[in-house]
């Protein structure tokens, strides 16, 4: 039975696309046939992060409009056998998404895939709405920062009340993924603590991704960060994938760096 997972946040720039790419790749690595759909029409990013932007011929909008077949638009990932990408159009805008059209594409994908990961655009308008409307499960991405948490809360409320599952009265599990968590800044009180965020959002935690240059680096070279074995974020995303698959794994929370006297002296002189 295919499962539709939406990765959403409300606020922009918190790491939705990075997360979508990492989770979709992780699910595919475990042997599940997975597709990632870019709902951010007009600002396509997924293909960049997945490193396949030069291979996009037909896109999601072409399929919705009937200009291309789904099989023509699906791009097969070169690293992970069971991973596919459905890129979006850069020349159109969100109005090109219709509820019927999206439903048709998702229904067709459901016959071929185990997991359908929908990368939501920021905001709560049409694109974000349609990205979450057909979801069976939601991953809400937030940074430990007040406006991001507020927007995530808003998004959780929308998913809880406006999705197709909510309309049918069926449960829709939601998970919180905290990204760009800088333990040093949290300790200094410059960022919200994990407990504060959890208290406000009150949904189960999927993971805490540390702030880490390797994430940006991976994006720049078009590689999902989960494939970078040296990145601490990769481990967190791998654990998050396990939790999505129902495994019980303890959450690792990034710890503040401990600096010895010698280290501090070196830094000072540097």
């Amino acid at each position, binding site marked *: 039975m295919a499962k539709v997972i939406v990765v959403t946040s409300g606020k922009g720039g918190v790491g939705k696309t990075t997360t979508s790419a990492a989770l979709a790749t992780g699910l595919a690595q475990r042997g599940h046939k997975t597709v990632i759909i870019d709902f951010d029409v007009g600002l396509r990013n997924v293909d960049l992060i997945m490193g396949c932007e030069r291979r996009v011929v037909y896109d999601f909008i072409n399929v919705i409009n009937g200009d291309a077949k789904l099989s023509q638009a699906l791009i097969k990932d070169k690293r992970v056998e069971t991973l596919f990408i459905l890129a979006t159009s850069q020349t159109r805008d969100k109005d090109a998404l219709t509820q019927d059209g999206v439903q048709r594409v998702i229904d067709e994908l459901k016959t071929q895939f185990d997991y359908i990961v929908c990368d939501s655009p920021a905001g709560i308008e049409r694109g974000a709405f349609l990205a979450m409307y057909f979801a069976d499960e939601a991953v809400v991405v937030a940074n430990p920062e007040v406006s991001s948490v*507020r927007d995530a809360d808003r998004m959780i*409320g929308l998913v*809880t009340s406006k999705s197709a599952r909510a309309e049918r009265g069926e449960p829709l599990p939601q998970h919180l993924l905290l990204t760009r968590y800088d333990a040093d800044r949290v300790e200094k009180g410059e960022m919200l603590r994990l407990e504060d965020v959890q208290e*406000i959002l*009150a949904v189960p935690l999927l993971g805490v991704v540390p702030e880490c240059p390797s994430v940006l680096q991976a994006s720049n070279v078009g590689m999902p960060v989960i494939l970078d074995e040296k990145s601490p974020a990769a481990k967190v995303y791998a654990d998050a994938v396990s939790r999505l698959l129902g495994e019980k794994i303890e959450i690792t929370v990034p710890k503040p760096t401990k600096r010895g006297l010698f280290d501090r002296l070196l830094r000072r002189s540097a």
Partner: protein
Amino acid sequence: MTQRPAAAPDAASAPFQIRGTSFTLLALKIVDPRDQTFFVKLQETLSLAPGFYSKAPIILDLSLLTAVAPVDMAGFCAALRDLGLVPVGIQGATAAWEEESTRAGLAVFPAGRAAEAQSVRGRAKPLPSPKARLVTDPVRSGQQVYAADGDLIVTAAVSRGAELLAEGNIHVYGPLRGRAVAGLGGDRSVRIFCRHLDADLVSIGGFYMVSEQMDPTLIGKPVQIRLVEDRLVFDPL
């Protein structure tokens, strides 16, 4: 010379006080007081729980003896006292029995009535539910919950940017971080109750207060909010 007014005796100095009170008493339902084995059989029963019956005040239920002429109640009571019981009165007796019992120093109690059994299933309709709206899921930013007919009860958290509206009272058992507007239609007698006050705004009957104006020492505390002479009053709970 001082004179104590007779109409208002000083309660503290009065030699007695009369108060209404009620007790649960044992009743001894008498079937045949002339039975030769009456006291033997009674003693057998009492001996099963001697502590319980010892010096127990008891009422004699004579309702089964309407067609029987009275026995010597003074002697009957004396025999009961020998068994450790303390007869204090009778109930359900005919006039002849009452007269004989009064002479023996017993009080006459009104006849006890058994409550009539009623079938629950027979009742036609369930009672109408009270017109309160109950919300058990968190109320998130941007969500609005309105109790159009009365009270609003929220058992979960109310996030910042969420809005609770009620014609009646508002009760919040999770943290209240959003807005709570009670008495939306102008009812000024309603109140807001919360276990953890951290509201953006509270309002009763059109009078509102934003968080900046609230007493910071009450933040995070259980509080009830009411309207007194056009002012919102916060009472710690």
